[in-house]
């Protein structure tokens, strides 16, 4: 179950979108202005952001930046009444997931959300993988990279000019730290990070 945070200063738009998403079984938390959202946002409750580009005081892009400063890089879908190219370009340069112009077709929004959910998941996985890989020593990381390239333990030992036993010991340590003895899973973690 993915969360959606909807930030729009227009109450009617906010409620209608939330209502629409509810029919897709997507729960959306709504906020009337960026400040309220910033005050409520919880890093441990990731979700996809649907933000109006133009709002008084703090714009959608500014909100996106403020979140990034706090290390929150959840996918953001920018919605706007003005589909002008300049705003669109700025949005994508800032790392926006998607850019939709009002009025928004329900299907399009849901599609965009699905993609966003995927990237949110991917992002979370990547974050997780990084956290696991961060536990490895430098040598262990070196060994994992070689494993990921498909090298056998002997080849790795030869390359690193150590004994094969030592390599095996490293690999046991890696399996322990990454929480998986599956080479395939280890390789996936190494690749997505």
């Amino acid at each position, binding site marked *: 179950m993915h969360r959606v945070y909807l930030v729009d200063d*227009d109450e009617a738009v906010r409620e*209608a979108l939330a209502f629409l998403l509810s029919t897709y079984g997507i729960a959306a938390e709504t906020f009337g202005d960026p400040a309220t959202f910033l005050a409520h946002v919880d890093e441990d409750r990731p979700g996809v952001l649907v933000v109006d580009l133009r709002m008084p005081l703090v714009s959608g892009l500014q909100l996106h930046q403020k979140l990034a400063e706090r290390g929150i890089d959840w996918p953001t879908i920018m919605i706007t009444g003005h589909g002008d190219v300049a705003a669109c370009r700025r949005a994508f340069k800032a790392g926006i997931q998607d850019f939709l112009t009002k009025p928004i077709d329900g299907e399009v929004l849901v599609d965009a959300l699905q993609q966003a959910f995927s990237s949110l998941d991917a992002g979370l996985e990547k974050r997780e993988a990084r956290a696991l890989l961060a536990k490895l020593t430098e040598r262990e990381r070196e060994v994992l990279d070689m494993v990921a390239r498909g090298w056998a333990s002997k080849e790795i030992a030869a390359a690193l000019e150590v004994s094969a036993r030592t390599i095996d010991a490293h690999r046991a340590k890696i399996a322990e730290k990454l929480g998986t003895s599956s080479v395939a899973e280890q390789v996936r973690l190494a690749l997505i990070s």
Partner: protein
Amino acid sequence: MTSPLSNPRLLGLALWLAALVAFVAVSVETSRTRMADELEVTGRTLHRLISQRVAQHDAHLTSLIALSSGAEPAPPGAIRQVMESITRFYPRIAWLALVSLDPVAGSGAGAAGGAQGAASDAGGEVQGSDGAGNGASLPAGITGQAGAEGSGASQPAGVGGAEGAQAAGDGAGGPVAVRDVVTVPPGGGVDLAPLAQEIAAQVRGKASIYAAGEGRYLLAKRASGTSHLAVVLLIDTAQLLVPEERPAWAHLELSLDGAVLVEQPAEPGLGLGVSWLAVPHFEKVIDGEGQRLLLSLDRALPLAALVPPERFLGFAAVAGVLTLVLVFALGQRAAVRRSELAAREAEERLAVQERETRLAHASRVNAMGELASGIAHELTQPLTALLSRSQAALRLARADTPDMAMISGALDVNVREAKRAGEMLRRMRDYASNKAPERARQDLNAIVAEVVALTRTDLERRQVALVLEFGEPAPHAVVDAIEMEQVLHNLIRNAAEATGAGGTVTVATGAAGREAKLAVSDDGPGIAAEVLPKLFTPFFTTKADGMGLGLSLCATLVERVDGRIEAENILGGGARFTISLPLAGER
């Protein structure tokens, strides 16, 4: 239009007076000329009549002399008969006498001198100036008269002189005695004795004239040859003319040698002559065989004759009527011109208003362009909500067990949203419409709310905060709602531009006395002192891309509804524009 002549009545009066003066002048001149001509004609006529009549006297003298002293002298009885018939036919001949001037033998110069003196007494008027000191020689008066006659065409001086010498010879210088031969009527007439000497000295066959007093004169003629006879006529000068022959207006005088014989004044009823015109005068000597009478005619010029009152009054009346007609016509023409002018002014005013209305419309359309993105946003919001909620409702409706309550709830909200969008569209359409201004009592708070709805997004984009201070109860004024919105929009936009991002624009409504007030203020830098007086001047602008028509148009639109607009700087920064309109009371 400052000349008093531009007043048709005064002009008419002046024209009328001028016409009267001209009439009087022309009338005086023509009347005077006519009267003078009349006098001249009358004078000539009378002169001819008198001349003919005095000529008859000479004829009588001649015929009587011929009768009495011809080759066969008629008996005195016959002469008397002739004389009597003459007096009968000619009443002016008062007395006829056939006398004999017999020399007095042995009488001396002294006697002659005495006679001379008597003559001087008798003919005093004629000879008074000459009589004294004249001796036996010819009296100066006679000589003078002969001389004067000599200067006439009929008798050369030389002949007169010769005859004078002959007469002196005839008279032999001795005294003569007058002996009446025949007199008619007998015993009438005058004593000829004093004149005897003079008559005796006359040239024979030539009549001489003597004053005889009482308006009469004597005409004497000596018989020719050596006869001592002479015929004398006593003529009543006044009867030379029949009274009817003299016009009543004529002042006639007949004089002999400067002495008036008869004077017939003009009829007094004709009035006194005016003193400022030369009186017409006629004077001519009667040229009748020694009867040197001077005829003089005068004519007084009474005002009534110069300017006949009835004609003057008639002319004044006609001129007055014409002047009144002229004044009326002028008045009509002026009135027509005034009404034409008023019509043209009204037309021009209408044209100006139309231009202003077109300009106002163009300005609104222009503003609408500026507002377009904001308004599109305003419309996008309800549309977004509508679309999303509709799709949601559709999904609900297509579910196996449709939640009708939720669907109808969604539709309810949708209807509200659609109306909100429609309202926005109406506002836009109204604002950009080109319909003729329509004045009606309007709620100024509502007008402010409309403008705010149109400009809110624009202000948000500019990041300018808007503060509304609505006066309660809402002030009302008779205005065109759209034009008033336009004025407010202009002021709000100017204020937003002045204060810039982060600033605040305040719109306040209220009432003060009999005026409704609309104030738009900002917390910007205020208005420069040198700009303040020129703010509402057309084409004055401080903006790089401005036309300078915004505020001037605002002033025009406000003044159209009898309001005014003022700008001032607020103490502590910022500017305030205040619109004052006549407060419209409760209906």
